């Protein structure tokens, strides 16, 4: 396996995708602004709060001009796009700081949570999938498959709440939420690690069924292939056949879909971060939505779109690397 990595072709593919991302992002931001413009929600009244009830019309108009919401949709959108390119995403009213700062502070925690959960889902899913595929229709296969379908139907926030009840309240083994203990004012590794366990497990388990079902299917199909039969005929150990031959070819179709799980990961994070009060970007999205903080909400929607596009690119690159027949033309 000393095939040279076609870096040039991969870079060209990434460049093409980046070009394609520009109109997509423009369209998404415009859509976001159009929805906001159509909404009955008045940002001036929200900004002024109870003071808005007694404020004079002049003050309200001045506020409207200051917030820039007196302009029509198109200039407002264009102004937002151009200032976003210079790094100015506006100010978040619910977090009381610039949107860029909110993202910078919270993106790392969300990435940590999502990456841990993803690792849990991939490792557990692969292990269980291979075990289940070894004996199709066996008790292990039937139990795990039924459990997977049930888990897939279970909402992540519900799983999170039950996990809190069991592990934090019943057993008292793990903290129920947050990043650190409430009494602590410094962020230490130990604290974060213990607080990470439950949310990462719940998010991972909510992604698990999908990985499991795919690996099980891929390995079971691969076990019927001639290559595997040949490996068995040559007397290779069951372990080598299963992991070296069946899993390798069975994982291939899954690889292309790994990056495309980013939307589901974001969806899960929105719920899990809220349940566990994890100080990540997804929890901030929900807070922004609840208090209609448009600048934050718009920026985070765009950020999520970027993440999805990056995930798609990643999975296509991986697939092209794993299977040279596919190439990097997309």
């Amino acid at each position, binding site marked *: 396996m000393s095939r040279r990595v076609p870096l040039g072709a991969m870079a060209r593919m990434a460049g093409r995708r980046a070009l394609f991302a520009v109109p997509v992002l423009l369209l998404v931001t415009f859509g976001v602004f159009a929805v906001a413009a159509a909404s009955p929600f008045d940002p001036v009244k929200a900004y002024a709060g109870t003071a808005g009830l007694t404020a004079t019309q002049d003050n309200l108009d001045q506020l409207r001009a200051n917030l820039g919401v007196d302009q029509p949709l198109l200039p407002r959108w264009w102004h937002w796009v151009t200032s976003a390119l210079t790094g100015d995403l506006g100010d978040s009213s619910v977090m009381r700081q610039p949107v860029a700062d909110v993202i910078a502070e919270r993106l790392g925690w969300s990435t940590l949570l999502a990456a841990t959960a993803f690792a849990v889902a991939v490792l557990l899913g692969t292990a269980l999938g291979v075990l289940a595929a070894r004996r199709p229709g066996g008790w292990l296969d039937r139990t795990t498959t039924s459990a997977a379908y049930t888990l897939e139907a279970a909402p992540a926030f519900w799983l999170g709440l039950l996990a809190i009840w069991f592990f934090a309240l019943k057993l008292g083994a793990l903290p129920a939420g947050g990043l650190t203990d409430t009494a602590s004012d410094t962020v230490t590794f130990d604290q974060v690690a213990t607080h990470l366990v439950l949310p990462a497990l719940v998010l991972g388990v909510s992604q698990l069924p999908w990985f499991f079902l795919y690996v099980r299917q891929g390995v079971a199909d691969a076990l019927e292939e001639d290559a595997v039969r040949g490996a068995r005929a040559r007397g290779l150990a069951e372990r080598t056949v299963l992991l070296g031959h069946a899993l390798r070819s069975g994982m291939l179709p899954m690889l292309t879909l790994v990056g495309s799980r980013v939307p589901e990961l974001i*969806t899960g994070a929105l719920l899990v971060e809220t349940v566990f009060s994890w100080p990540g970007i997804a929890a901030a999205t*929900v807070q922004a939505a609840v208090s*209609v903080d448009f600048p934050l909400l718009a920026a985070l929607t765009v950020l999520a779109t970027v993440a999805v596009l990056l995930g798609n690119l990643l999975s296509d690159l991986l697939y092209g690397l794993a299977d040279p027949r596919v190439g990097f033309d997309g």
Partner: protein
Amino acid sequence: MADLTLTKDAPSRTWRSHGRTRRSTRTVRVAASAVIAAATVLAVLIVPPVVQLDEQAIDLALKLRPPSLAHPFGTDDVGRDLLLRCVYGLRVSLLVGLVAALVATVIGTAVGAAAAAFGGWTDRIVMRLVDTFSSVPHLLLGIFIVAMFRPGVWPVIVSVALTHWLSTARIVRSEVLSLRSRPFVDAAVSGGASRWRVTARHLLPAVLPQAGLAAVLMVPHAMWHESALSFLGLGLPTHQASLGTLVQTARGSLLAGDWWPTLFPGLFLIVPTLAIAGLAGAWRERINPRRRSELML
């Protein structure tokens, strides 16, 4: 969640048709799904008008009682019967799910069929738009829409419908494209049928089973979205029982150690979802036994 039946028919080659036992467990599964789905529909249709019990009846003396004979699911933090609340919640969630799935299917079928029937630039532009919208995570877009148009049932329905027609549009488009090259379409065209007539009389009826299947599978997914939005405090108002608001209001009791107000609404979501997925899987095998269709909902 919700690509529940993604792999259900896929195992056909390796896992199925091994004699009678396997077949009978499959039959049992379909029958069980049918019974549960029917029971669900009956419960939400019959219980509210027939059973003259007030789901909002508050009895503080009976608050947070664990499950017992009088209250099989226990009572919530103001003494309301949870079984009754769950049935009412399921009724609301199911209604939201049905309407949203119906609207999404109509939009998706129309867009997909139009894109395929016109072809060329229309098709390219429309499908690029569909790709663009698919790049925004569903729940996030839904949250955004609901946040801007709160509160009420309609914003929830609209937000779920507007985020879910994309997959149906893709399915319908690819079905129409594959049908367009069939001889019966050529026959209709050479018989002088217009583009509209071909689409309406020959293509659409042929894709309806696929679109219907997608719609059925979308119902539990839409219910899931409704409960997620309501749980986040962005969906229905908290006094209105839906599966999501029930879990949301149960959060306080859960932290005090009372598990039943959280557990049962979740089960009310999972069990019908599995039943519908089981039925849809069986239906798919019937209408499309050989091909593995993409139903990533």
